[in-house]
């Protein structure tokens, strides 16, 4: 545009971008004050109440704001939301890494939740499954295949870059009830041919997500350690715990 035209444009009263940026800077300062006030009254609520965190996150999402985008963001600095979730991210990574040799990089949300809570210790802030899910969503930014697969009302958390397509997922879901699955179960429930069934099961074996029990009565069973590891490494039951000294 020519300079004359530009000047005329400005005269018309159209606010220019650079002016709005100045305006934004001022509004940002005001907003920061409001946030500080909010923090001084309710910062504790964020740390103490999982319900409040859910509400907070949902509201942010509705207006188009990501309070966890950066540790340098206002939300993080003033409300401490950042540290809460980023630290949780570290704990999640560490649990997944520690168990990967056993379950191939797949773990139920429940087991992850239990182990993270244990790792945090008695005096640490409680975390809910919703908190874990949000932390995991953030971890995706770092590659490495963090993802969640819905199975039977809960989720399997994947922490390795294995390519799991619909076929793999559906077999995992089928195995969720008992912790294992057989070729004939798959063929009956999913109506697949043998070749497709064996191909998917072989994939799971190769990725270390499934173990083969060839000694099982009847036909071989394909066990998923992610689903049965709770049973194998059983912790103290409530009855046993109540008999111990607190």
């Amino acid at each position, binding site marked *: 545009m020519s300079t004359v035209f530009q000047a005329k444009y400005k005269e018309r009263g159209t606010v220019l971008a650079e002016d709005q940026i100045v305006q934004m800077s001022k509004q940002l300062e005001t907003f920061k004050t409001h946030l500080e006030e909010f923090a001084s009254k309710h910062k504790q609520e964020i740390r103490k109440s999982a319900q409040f965190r859910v509400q907070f996150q949902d509201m942010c999402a509705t207006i188009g704001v990501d309070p966890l985008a950066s540790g340098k963001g206002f939300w993080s600095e003033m409300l401490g939301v950042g540290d809460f979730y980023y630290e949780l991210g570290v704990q999640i990574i560490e649990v997944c890494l520690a168990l990967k040799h056993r379950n191939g990089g797949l773990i139920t949300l429940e087991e992850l939740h239990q182990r993270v809570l244990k790792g945090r210790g008695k005096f640490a802030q409680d975390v809910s499954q919703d908190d874990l899910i949000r932390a995991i969503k953030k971890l995706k930014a770092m590659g490495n295949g963090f993802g969640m697969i819905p199975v039977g009302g809960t989720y399997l958390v994947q922490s390795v870059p294995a390519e799991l397509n619909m076929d793999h997922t559906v077999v995992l879901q089928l195995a969720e009830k008992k912790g294992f699955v057989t070729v004939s179960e798959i063929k009956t429930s999913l109506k697949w041919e043998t070749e497709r069934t064996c191909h998917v099961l072989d994939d799971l074996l190769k990725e270390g997500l499934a173990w083969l029990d060839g000694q099982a009565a009847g036909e071989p069973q394909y066990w998923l350690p992610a689903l049965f590891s*709770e*049973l194998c490494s059983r912790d103290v039951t409530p009855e046993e715990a109540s008999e111990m000294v607190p």
Partner: protein
Amino acid sequence: MDRFVWSSGLLEINETLVIQQRGVRLYDGEEKGKMDVGILLLSTHRLLWRDHKNHDCCIAMPLSQIVLFEEQAGGIGKSAKIVVHLHPAPSNKEPGPYQTSKYSYIKLSFKEHGQIEFSRRLSEEMTQRRWEHMPVSQPIYTSTTSQAGRMRAVGIVGIERKLEEKRKEMDKNISEAFEDLSKLMEKAKEMVELSRSIASKIKDKQGDITEDETIRFKSYLLSMGIANPVTRETHGSGTHYHMQLAKQLGEILLAPLEEQGGMMALTEVYCLVNRARGMELLSPEDLVNACKMFEALKLPLRLRIFDSGVMVIQLQSHSEEEMIASALDNVSEKGSLTSEEFAKLLGLSVLLSKERLLLAEKMGHLCRDDSVEGLRFYPNLF
């Protein structure tokens, strides 16, 4: 289980059904109880349960009996449960399935799942306590208590009152917090709208934006957690903050990288850096955005993304050819290697050693033998 009374299962006027769930068994404390599996119903006033076979068998308990509840995760062979802790039953309670109980809690066992949603709704009802201001036509328990009843409850009354006060105060704090939160969000929304307006003007070139102003705009977006609407880049990439961060990382990561053979997975770096910081932690996106600036800032590190999607930080000095050549040497010496064996040999993580072998394969130096026993690499003699 002695807090329950026999019920017709019909809802009173002003009482609304909130949620119901099939496949629930009730436990009297730890004991399975004489009831079978049935349908659990939550209303604004009561918790009801009906036998799934015999619909005439229906019991109910007022929500006011509930002190608190907690979830108990399920597992293989174990259904998820909700443990509900209860006030003692008043002495004038109507008859129910149990005359007495040695437990002050019951368990709801969800054999067909549904525990998550039920728990959420129960939590809502316990917070809102609608039964307190929506009287039903028939009082569920009569309010007069006999002398004996009062004496039996006397030790607990003080504790109950304290819990009640604490709960009321918690409710008050939470509702005030929610109110303040809504107001705050309104203001945040204004900021988002302003940033969108600016972005559209930048796109339509309405005004002269200097480079400086662009950087400033990006940092405002970073502060608010708003995605950059112009470039769709991840939040606040290319700001001064990330440049500083990149330089810091360039220093603190040198030693760990040397130790780990010149390469570390980004998730490892994330844990390392944040554990060292203790406070004011980096977000995953902060880390990625900072690492993207290594090249531009001429730092001796590089962010690299493998085909599999794995992201690593690599020392610039460790060239690709060197890594591939040494991988080939190792494999040739041993005849063949799996990722696990290679990892042990080099003291690397299995993930990264697999990536190196894959890279060598991609360049044509190794070939694979993929079987259910695992992935094994051989020198490529073709």
